């Protein structure tokens, strides 16, 4: 029955717990809809025939509705609709409430590609690998306009909005490959902003993940995916280098240990920066980000308060890349010794 209805309605395969859950309601709703439309329209047609005019100038009388009919006219649709709502909303609550423990994956949409990043792990463009049978949560943001992640086989979809994170969770049930679409109009290549979800057996997923983490490029599940690029964290460093060149950081900063207009970035991460007002602080990620966004908050002793703010000019991921780049700049000396700039 399930497969019959599914095929009749052209629905794709059911590959998530949510898909299994909502499809039943889907059949009921569409079934009722078809029946209601056919019923009402055909009743109209039948009346057209049954009550066609028979004599010239035929007169008709007002027909008053009995109370029970009025009650039925209001009551039946109301009950039906509220029932749909009740079931639908409880499913929706399921859809918006991820379980306590989920595998979190970060998603970034930008015109016109998807980036998936695993905490402590690899990141990939266009292909999202997830384990079957484990709840996965996508934490999603956009760096330009609104996009939307849509995985028809999971029956799930959520907008990806700049300036915030939205979440989308699912638990894949079938191993396989499923298309992923962008469904929020986002400009020229909106229709080409596609991706693929690869659902892997959990053990295989773990192996793949470990391999990625260790830096070995490995695609465990045989057939390579078209267009798939699995990149290592190191890419972020190169990205950071590119960004800093592009934004002109090197006009003031060096990476070779020499102070210039600004302090050198070599060994900056983990060092203790001393400020004009006498305070000091360990240069961790938060501090590095702050220095870019709000440089005059802490002015390093010995330097002028001249660095411009990059707030609004740096996209979130670019800031992250810069941070990673600065972190990668280590001399032979042990880190954290607080060497003078």
């Amino acid at each position, binding site marked *: 029955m399930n497969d019959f209805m599914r095929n009749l309605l052209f629905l794709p395969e059911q590959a998530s717990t949510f898909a299994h859950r909502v499809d039943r309601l889907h059949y009921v709703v569409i079934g009722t809809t078809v029946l209601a439309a056919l019923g009402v329209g055909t009743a109209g047609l039948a009346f057209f025939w049954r009550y066609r005019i028979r004599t010239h100038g035929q007169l008709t009388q007002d027909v008053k509705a009995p109370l029970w009919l009025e009650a039925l006219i209001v009551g039946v649709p109301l009950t039906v609709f509220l029932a749909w709502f009740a079931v639908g909303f409880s499913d929706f609550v399921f859809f918006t409430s991820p379980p306590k423990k989920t595998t979190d994956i970060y998603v970034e949409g930008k015109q016109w590609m998807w980036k998936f*990043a695993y905490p*402590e792990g690899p990141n990939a463009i266009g292909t999202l690998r997830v384990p079957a049978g484990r709840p996965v949560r996508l934490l999603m943001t956009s760096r330009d306009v609104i996009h939307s992640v849509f995985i028809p086989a999971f029956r799930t979809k959520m907008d990806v909005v700049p300036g915030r994170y*939205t*979440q989308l969770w699912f638990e894949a049930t079938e191993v396989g490959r499923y298309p992923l679409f962008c469904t929020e109009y986002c400009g020229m290549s909106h229709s080409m902003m596609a991706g693929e979800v690869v659902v892997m057996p959990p053990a295989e997923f773990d192996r793949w993940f470990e391999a990625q983490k260790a830096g070995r490029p490995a695609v465990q599940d045989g057939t390579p995916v078209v267009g798939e690029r699995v990149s290592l*964290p190191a890419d*972020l460093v190169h990205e950071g280098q590119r960004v800093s060149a592009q934004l002109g950081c090197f006009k003031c900063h060096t990476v070779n240990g020499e102070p210039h207009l600004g302090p050198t970035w070599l060994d900056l991460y983990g060092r203790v920066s001393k400020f004009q007002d006498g305070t000091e602080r360990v240069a961790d990620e938060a501090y590095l980000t702050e220095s870019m*966004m709000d440089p005059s908050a802490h002015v390093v002793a010995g330097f002028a308060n001249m660095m411009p703010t990059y707030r609004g000019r740096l996209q*979130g991921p670019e*800031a*992250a890349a810069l941070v990673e780049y600065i972190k990668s700049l280590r001399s032979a000396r042990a880190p954290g010794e607080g060497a003078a700039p």
Partner: protein
Amino acid sequence: MTDHAPHAHGSPLRYLLVFLGLLVLTVVTYVTGKMHLGGWALPLALVIASTKAGLVLAFFMHLWDTRGAPLVAMAVSLLFIVTLLALVFGDVAFRFPLARPDRMGNYEALPVGALLGDGPDGHAHPVPAKR
């Protein structure tokens, strides 16, 4: 000051009283506005403003002596404004916390620890710019 104009409701005296009332309320709102009442400042200001608006509507605009459609029009407009506000707040106040625009840059609010700096490897996931 005859009142033979059939629809000139209200007398100049009434207008004057309303005017004075409005002035007093303006002063009150100004003074209380400067008093740093914390959480009460906004409700108070709104109550005063609504009272003033009510005075203008009722007397300057003669709604007090009007029946029927204009009254309904105003009431319905007000109702729609209130629902618009209520349902928009129903969204922003209850949505997934990270989906609030003011939460970006507030790293502590992120569920998976700090987005940055969770260890030597760092992560390769997008990082919100601090605003």
